[in-house]
Each structure stands twice: as C-alpha cells, then as structure tokens.
C-alpha cells in the first residue's frame, strides 16, 4: 500500500532523513515513535509530498509520487492527513470545513457532501457542532473535526502527525478513541505519536526512529518489552 525506498531528505546542509525503507500493508496500523528531531514528522510529511523528497522513492498504491509525471493531487486525495495544529479553516463553519474538499476535488454535490459530512460528524460525536465556527471548539473537538474532514475524502490511507500533542491532557482520550475506532474499521494508518499506550494497544507495528534513521521496528509487544537496541532502551526508559 505504501512503500518507501531509500528515502533521503535534507534541508540545506541539514540531513534529516538518511535512508528510510518502510512498507505498510493494507489495513495495517504503523506507529512511529522517537525523540523530537528524529525526523519522524518529516518522514510522515514526505509520504504525501508536503515535503519535497531529496532522494529515493515513495510509492502509494504503486504510484511513484516522486515521479514528476504522477498527479500528486490525485494521490493526496486518497491519503488523509491530520495535523498537530488541526489546521481547520477558521473562516468556514465545521460542516463547511468538511464539505469543501469533496465538493471542489471530487465534484460532489453540496447536498451529498452535507449528508456525508453530518454522518462523519456523528461518527466523531460532534453532530451538534456542524454550524459552529472552529474558534468556538475545544482542542479535542477541533481535532475530531479535522479527522472527519480528512475522512470526507474517503481516503485509503490516513496519516496522523502527533495528533494529540497540542491537546490538554483531558482531551487526548476523545481523539485517541476516534482513532482506535478507525483502526478497528480497517483503515490503513501511519501515526506519529508520543502516546505509548496507543502504540501498544492499536499498533500492528512500531517503528522507533532516531537521528534520521529507523533504529528498530517490531510488534509493539516485542519493541516495548524486549527492545534490542541501546538507543531504543534509553528512549523507552525515559518515556514509559
């Protein structure tokens, strides 16, 4: 579903990703953990080309997105992304946030987009906020709207970039709950997070990154309980 081959990324002379190779299978939930500055967010942003790729290849369902000839907008429509800072559109109501992309990118009719949008809002427990503006929502509500907005495009893959890092602690649970539900429904997900509990419970595979490299990857049970690398052990001893 996703295949990342020899991915390298540098900002000027600063090398952020050195040589990343990852395969994600359909319906798999891959959790990426690691200290800040390890390149995990950059890795995620390379998967839908929000960061230009310095070298290597990224295949999404067989399409090489690093190939100039492939239509990145088409690929992005199939890959939903949820950001740490939510990035809701503040000038639009909640329901309009969700309706915008399906209408403009998929040419869905307004009525259909609204129906689908309300359905998704019900799914994330915010049907009553449809006509509210994002500024009036709490952080947890905003992030749930952001998830609904990404789902409105009916993506095959969902990317989560530290979705709970900007939230007050008591709001983390409601967002993780929605993500767990998605995973249960069989969504293919790549999640960058500091929530080790979530990684353990929902992840099929955990990748530990440090210094622009994948240091270790394994099932959550193996990685958390029997880490092989010293760097993994050092990191886990600090966060667990």
């Amino acid at each position, binding site marked *: 579903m996703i295949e990342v081959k020899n991915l390298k990324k540098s900002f000027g002379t600063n090398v952020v990703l050195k040589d990343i190779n990852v395969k994600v299978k359909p319906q798999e939930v891959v959790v990426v953990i690691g200290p800040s500055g390890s390149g995990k967010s950059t890795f995620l942003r390379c998967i*839908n080309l*929000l960061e230009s790729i310095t070298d290597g290849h990224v295949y999404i369902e067989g399409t090489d997105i690093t190939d100039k000839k492939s239509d990145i*907008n*088409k690929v*992005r*429509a*199939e*890959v*939903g*992304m949820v*950001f740490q*800072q939510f*990035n*809701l*559109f*503040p*000038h639009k109501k909640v329901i309009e946030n969700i309706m*915008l*992309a399906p209408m*403009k*990118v998929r040419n869905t009719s307004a009525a259909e987009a609204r129906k689908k949008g309300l359905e998704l809002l019900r799914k994330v427990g915010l049907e009553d906020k449809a006509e509210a*503006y994002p*500024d009036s929502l709490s952080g947890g509500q905003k992030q749930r709207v*952001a998830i609904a*907005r*990404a789902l409105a*495009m009916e993506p095959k893959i969902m990317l989560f970039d530290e979705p709970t890092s900007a939230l007050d602690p008591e709001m983390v649970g409601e967002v993780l709950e929605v993500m767990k539900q998605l995973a249960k429904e069989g969504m293919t997900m790549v999640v960058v997070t500091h929530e080790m509990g979530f990684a353990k419970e929902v992840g099929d595979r955990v990748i530990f990154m440090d210094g622009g490299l994948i240091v270790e990857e394994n099932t959550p049970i193996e990685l958390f309980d029997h880490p092989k690398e010293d760097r993994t052990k050092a990191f886990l001893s600090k966060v667990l």
Partner: protein
Amino acid sequence: MDFQWDILVEYAPFFLKGTLLTIGLSLAGILIGTVLGLFIGLGKMMKNKFLSFPFSVYITLFRGTPMLVQIMLIHFAVVPLFTGGTNGIAAAILTLSLNSAAYIAEIFRAGIQSIDKGQMEAARSLGMTHVQAMRYVILPQAFKRMIPPLGNEFIVLIKESSLASLVAAPELMYWGRAMQGQYFRVWEPYLTAALIYLVLTLSLSFLLSRLERRLSTE
C-alpha cells in the same frame, strides 16, 4: 475674514460635478488598482526569481517616485504616445490605478503571507490544487486581514486624486482652483473642497468598518 456665500452658491453646481468626477476617478483607481495589485502581488510572490523580478521592479518604481511626477509623465508623455493627444481624465485614472496597484500588491502579499502555512498544507493534503487552496482557503482569510490597510490605501487614493486637477481633469480640486482664479478668493474654494474630501473619506472608512464587522466570524 468675510466668507462670501454668494460665490459659493454660484460655484455649487461645479463643485457637485467635480465631486462626482472625484468619486469616479477614485472608484476607477480602487477597482483597477485592486485587480492589478492582486496580480502584481501574486507575481512578486512567485518562487522563480526571474519571473518575480519584473514585479519587484514595478513596485519599486511606483512606490519610489512621487505621484505628481508619475501623473505628469503619463499625461504628457505616455498617453500621447498611444492616442496622439492628451486626456486629463484618462491620465488620472491610469496614474491612480498604476500607483495604487503597487501599494495594493504589497498589501495583498503581506495578507497572504500572514496566513499560517498549515492552512495551505491542510488544503493541499485534501487533494486541492494550489489555485483551489488559494481561492477557497487562503484568499478569503487574507482578505479579511487586508481590509484595514486597504482602507488606508483607498483613503490615500481619494486624496491623491486631487493631483488630477494639475492635468486639467475637471474634478473637485480643479473647480476649487478655478474659483480662486476667478475671484481671487482662497478660503471659500479650498475650505469647501477640504470639507467635501473629508465627507468622502469618512464615508469610505465607515463603509469599510461595516464590512470588517460583517466578515468577522465571532
């Protein structure tokens, strides 16, 4: 100082005509300047240095030289080059539009660049093209932030339209000068003109603050 009301009454129809032309010149300058300014602002923001360079030059030239010089050049040199004759109104509209476009371009650029880059990323991550993201996500938000500086620029434009009197466009200030020439009076024509300009700029800022309140989402 004795204020001669009778000559004012005599000149009232001219002041009215002049005011209408002042409004016309300003509106044309605002509309054309805004459209041009948007394109020049977007042009200056292009990543390719060679493509954005001409737009930078344009802004530098029109912001860096006095409008009086620009209107003289356009009236006596540029317009005759194309039409073979001079035309005060055409020169005034052209100068006001080209000059305000330079300022408005910078207002647009600042407005667009003030929007958090997460907004563009979110729009693009949903599959929107750059143009769609600009049109539906970035510009509506940027526009709201641009209203106060745009209002400033429009007010400046109304006032600077008075320079058109120097190329014989019969707007408000032109009739003020005509009245001074005929009666050798200064208080009556210029106080009247000042008052009318004040009414025009006050009305505009009132309209703009109404617009700003209507666009607020709170």
